[in-house]
């Protein structure tokens, strides 16, 4: 595990550089999106404001768990990361931090998260968070990613868990509406990630990771992005159809969905090289906006 980084002398031993590396290990931008969806889950769980303790410690606990999973992912992928353009500058392959430091950091974060959630929030949230963490760090990173082109489809379940975790932090139980939020992110992950995988196809092929564009080709992946986007747009209607959300959300979901479909159709129709990355970038804005509108709608409900 991360032997390459262990044996190398650390290039900059100052405390500031260490902290910067630890921060980078957490994948702050990914964690920010995860925490955002979790907070939306918390706020949607009750008509009023959720209890402050659950909100505060639930958010921190989920953030720590997500950061721990990200750090473990860095450790377990260090060897592959070193061979890929996109990831070779990460702290471990670049030798800015040792494998041991990263592992200790990840375990400390995970432990802090479990204690915070288990003691200050509720044990079900701690349990589900632990399972998502293991699901991402072990089942996805170590197994699925290298085993099947359906890797990110199945592994998407771990990434789709945060709103459920947030919801459970407030209510203490797994509710049907929380599962709708899960379903949205679950359906969103394949088109989101495959857009990136098309752009990075050669790098994935080089390190032998069987991403869909590597195993089944570019055109097949573009078709699947389109099909999953259609599925996603249909799934995003469910919060309105089950009366969890109102018209503001419905309008936003339709407009955003039309935007995503526009990208997906263009991706299918045209080979232009900048399109995959632009679709990827849009997909992140899409999810952020969709969840923001779930929230706006929750506090400003308009029904027909």
């Amino acid at each position, binding site marked *: 595990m991360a032997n390459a980084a262990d044996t190398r002398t650390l290039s900059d031993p100052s405390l500031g550089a260490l902290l910067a590396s630890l921060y980078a290990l957490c994948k702050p931008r990914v964690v920010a999106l995860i925490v955002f969806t979790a907070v939306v889950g918390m706020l949607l769980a009750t008509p009023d404001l959720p209890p402050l303790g659950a909100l505060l410690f639930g958010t921190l606990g989920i953030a720590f768990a997500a950061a721990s999973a990200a750090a473990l992912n860095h450790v377990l992928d260090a060897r592959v990361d070193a061979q890929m353009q996109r990831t070779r500058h990460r702290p471990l392959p670049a030798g800015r931090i040792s494998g041991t430091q990263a592992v200790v950091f990840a375990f400390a974060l995970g432990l802090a998260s479990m204690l915070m959630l*288990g003691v200050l929030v509720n044990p*079900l949230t701690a349990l589900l968070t632990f*399972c998502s963490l293991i699901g991402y760090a072990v*089942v996805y990173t170590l197994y699925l990613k290298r085993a099947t082109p359906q890797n990110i489809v199945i592994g998407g379940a771990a990434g789709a868990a945060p709103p459920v975790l947030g919801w459970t932090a407030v209510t203490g139980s797994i509710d049907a509406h929380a599962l709708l939020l899960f379903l949205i992110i679950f359906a969103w992950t394949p088109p989101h990630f495959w857009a990136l995988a098309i752009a990075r196809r050669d790098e994935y092929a080089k390190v032998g990771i069987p991403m869909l564009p590597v195993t089944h080709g570019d055109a097949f992946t573009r078709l699947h992005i389109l099909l999953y986007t259609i599925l996603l747009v249909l799934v995003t209607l469910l919060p309105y159809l089950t009366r969890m959300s109102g018209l503001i959300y419905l309008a936003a979901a339709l407009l955003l969905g039309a935007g995503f479909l526009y990208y997906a159709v263009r991706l299918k129709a045209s080979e232009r090289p900048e399109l995959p990355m632009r679709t990827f970038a849009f997909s992140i804005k899409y999810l952020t906006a969709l969840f923001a509108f779930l929230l706006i709608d929750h506090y400003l409900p308009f029904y027909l």
Partner: protein
Amino acid sequence: MLWFRPLALAAAVLTLAVVVLGAWVRLNDAGLGCPDWPGCYGQVTVPQTAAELEAAQAAFPDRPPEPGKAWLEMTHRYAAGILGLLILAIAVIAWRRRDDPEQRVFLPVFLVALVIFQALLGMWTVTLLLKPILVVLHLLGGMTTLALLWWLYLSTDPKRPPRALAAPPLGMAAVAGLIMLGLQIALGGWTSANYAALACPDFPTCQAEWWPEMDFADGFVLWRGTGIDYEGGVLDNDARVAVHMTHRVGAIVTALVLFAIGGTAVWRARTRGARAAGAWLIVLVCLQWAIAVSMLARGLPVMLATAHNAIAAILVLTLVYLIYKSWRMQPTPGR
């Protein structure tokens, strides 16, 4: 023999169904739906007509017939009966081909003995009024039948002729994990058979305490004599709490053991199948815990409790698969 493997697989699938059906019967409080054995109120089928119901009532005045529960119990018996015939057919095929050195003979014949013993345990479960030790043995017998039929199916794959048995660390660990899982299933059965699942309605505390008052000595008396009706349980609160808490502690230990085995398999196993089994192990343990905690939160709904049993059975299958994949495919012991 072309038919041998498909029959073994069919029997394994049917066993899974019979095990889960058995749990469904018990959790619906229908274990005594037919107070006699092998018939139901003295008949081959469930009493239905007014005359039959009257006769049943007269024959068992203490246990007025409830057709719904009787049907559950009889469905389990019919399914188990079909399974018994299937296993007998497998054994007959194996026995007739006993001169072929490739043919497994011992395992199929042993399975016939096991399934007969299971039938006896099923009978005693009824006639000795749900005596907990018999309920647990009946459950363990079902799980063992399942594991052995699955092993029979896996190990007769013609594409992978058996190699000399070597004991790689992962295979040994998986065997230890299976034993641990078996113990935990027994503890789970004991919790159910003693109606102790709701003795601790809260989680992770029990009756609002981390380590409540418990009576382990009374909770684990295996034999209390016959003639007692155990439906609803006979233990007092402290003994039930002891039983429940033991299952909880067992769950933590089992989860840690299975996580370690699953993680090692995912990380280090050489075959694709073993890595997949490791990943499944982790997912299933998580699922099992989530179901367990939800069961408590929702006051033990029958659906969730049955799912808890089903996941336990699937965990057994996964571990057997992992043992097979890590054991047979290693060309040399160790690494």
